[in-house]
């Protein structure tokens, strides 16, 4: 056989094998989480808080972590959304294109995007010390909001940048101000992008452990106020997996399964929404 054909065959096989290995490893992860998580999942797990302490108590469930995580990621997403939308609208509607400020802000978002979450945790804690805050839901919300701000803003920015220039001009030609253009034309065009960006950010926020470790703390109780510590699913996994008791480890496996399911569900929903919402968008 021709040497070139052999080479072609060898590399094609290697490439296919690599792709296969990659999907296999990811499939194995899912299988592991399912195999360990499903048997430990039951109603009590979902509706009770751990009894006798999350680290030692063998009874109860992970309600504290589920509710804590939803509160925390929800609050952080709301806060980040409140910041992101104006930032993105300013960059794309008000600011001069390619001005120093715009370039600098986009660069800052890129840098923040790459900052490890543990650094957000450490920085968040430093700020909390400054204001005399203890580990609390509020502290966690702020740290996670900072963590997901760049993820959300960049995702939105990508979408808003694709809004056609003619639309701006049509709006200005009708006498609309920049604010009216931003809110009634650009924002409406960008709705699918805003929705997906928000959901992606929520998914990242709910899955992050390192940033909430010092800022939100951990507790057995469902948080009753912003100033109380809050349990989170990733930390529920981390702390409870490290115990020698199988009953406690089961809570970690159940948390891992719930967290994975939440993240996958969000990802699927954002996909479906993005497809349905784009119907009325001017391209």
């Amino acid at each position, binding site marked *: 056989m021709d040497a070139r054909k052999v080479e072609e065959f060898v590399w094609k096989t290697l*490439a296919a094998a690599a792709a296969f290995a990659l999907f296999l490893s990811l499939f194995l992860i899912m299988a592991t989480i399912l195999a360990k998580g499903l048997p430990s999942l039951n109603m009590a797990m979902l509706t009770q808080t751990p009894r006798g302490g999350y680290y030692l108590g063998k009874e109860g469930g992970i309600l504290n972590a589920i509710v804590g995580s939803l509160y925390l990621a929800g609050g952080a997403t709301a806060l980040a959304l409140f910041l992101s939308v104006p930032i993105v609208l300013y960059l794309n509607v008000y600011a001069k294109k390619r001005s120093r400020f715009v370039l600098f802000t986009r660069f800052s978002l890129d840098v923040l995007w790459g900052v490890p979450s543990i650094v957000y945790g*450490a920085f968040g804690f430093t700020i909390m010390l400054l204001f005399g805050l203890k580990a609390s839901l509020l502290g966690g919300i702020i740290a996670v909001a900072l963590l997901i701000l760049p993820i959300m803003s960049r995702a939105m920015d990508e979408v808003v940048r694709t809004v056609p220039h003619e639309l701006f001009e049509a709006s200005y030609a009708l006498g609309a101000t920049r604010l009216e253009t931003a809110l009634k034309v650009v924002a409406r065009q960008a709705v699918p992008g805003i929705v997906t960006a928000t959901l992606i950010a929520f998914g990242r926020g709910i899955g992050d452990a390192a940033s909430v470790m010092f800022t939100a703390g951990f507790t057995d109780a469902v948080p009753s106020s912003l100033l109380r510590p809050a349990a989170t699913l990733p930390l529920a996994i981390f702390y409870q997996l490290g115990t020698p008791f199988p009953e406690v480890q089961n809570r970690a496996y159940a948390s891992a399964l719930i967290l994975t399911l939440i993240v996958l569900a969000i990802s699927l929903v954002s996909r479906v929404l993005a497809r349905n919402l784009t119907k009325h968008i001017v391209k």
Partner: protein
Amino acid sequence: MIRLVKDKLAGAGMLALAGVPGLVVFAMILGLYGRSRPILAAKPLSELLFSSSWHPLRGEFGLFTFIMGTLWVTAVAVAIAIPLCLLASIYLAEYAPRRLREWTAPLIDLLAGIPSVVFGVWGVLVVVPLIKNHVAPLAGVSSSGYCVLAAGIVLAVMVFPVIVHVSVEVLKTVPNEVREASLALGATRWQTIRHVVMRKAMPGVIAAVVLGLSRAFGETMAVLMVAGNVAAVPKTVFDPAYPLPALIANKYGEMLSVPMYDSALLLAALALLMVVLLVNVAARAILLRVERSVQ
């Protein structure tokens, strides 16, 4: 009139909020620097970075062990991830039937969102026992399984979706005419990929790898769970490591009682931040050059 006032007011408000990202970067650098000043004033930077003597109670805070831990773990992860990801992206972008490609793209996206702590659970349950019972004996050493190799594997699997997603996108941007020209000259598919497509796509692929690398580099939880966390410079991949993020995560709770402990840990955080900043500046410079060469 009122509309114009509203427009101006909203503009000012948005400008203020648009300043937030830049401000956060500055606040982070200044805040972490401010908090690590006490230790920087007490010890020379070279001792902090290059001494491996970590004895907080005696006031010795050499971070070298932890820096080496981070480097080892990241290097192993990259060594595993790069060849696999490159080959897999080449397969998915160039060889795979269209059906398969349409199926895998959303799947990869989905997997990119899985929290790192879940990868950590998989590492503890599967990778660590595998290394302890099979890989290490095969290599003729004994290992607890909690080691550089385990952390590297978990990290590599974690960055797969990120790198593959971006590389496939990059490979798809190479125009088909280029491929056709090469094939028309009698080159095989592989020759076309290797000498034409990859050459065109190289900068983008490098950017993808850097993206994955920076994610692996700062990853905390997954590594913390499987790296073993023993404060010694690893000599082989079967030795435990103690990377910087794991150090911060583990010790931050107990630090407040020992003088300068928090300073040392926030210096570690500052070091991570500075590396991210440098990588970003470098990546941006590469991308700018690429954009220019394309135009």
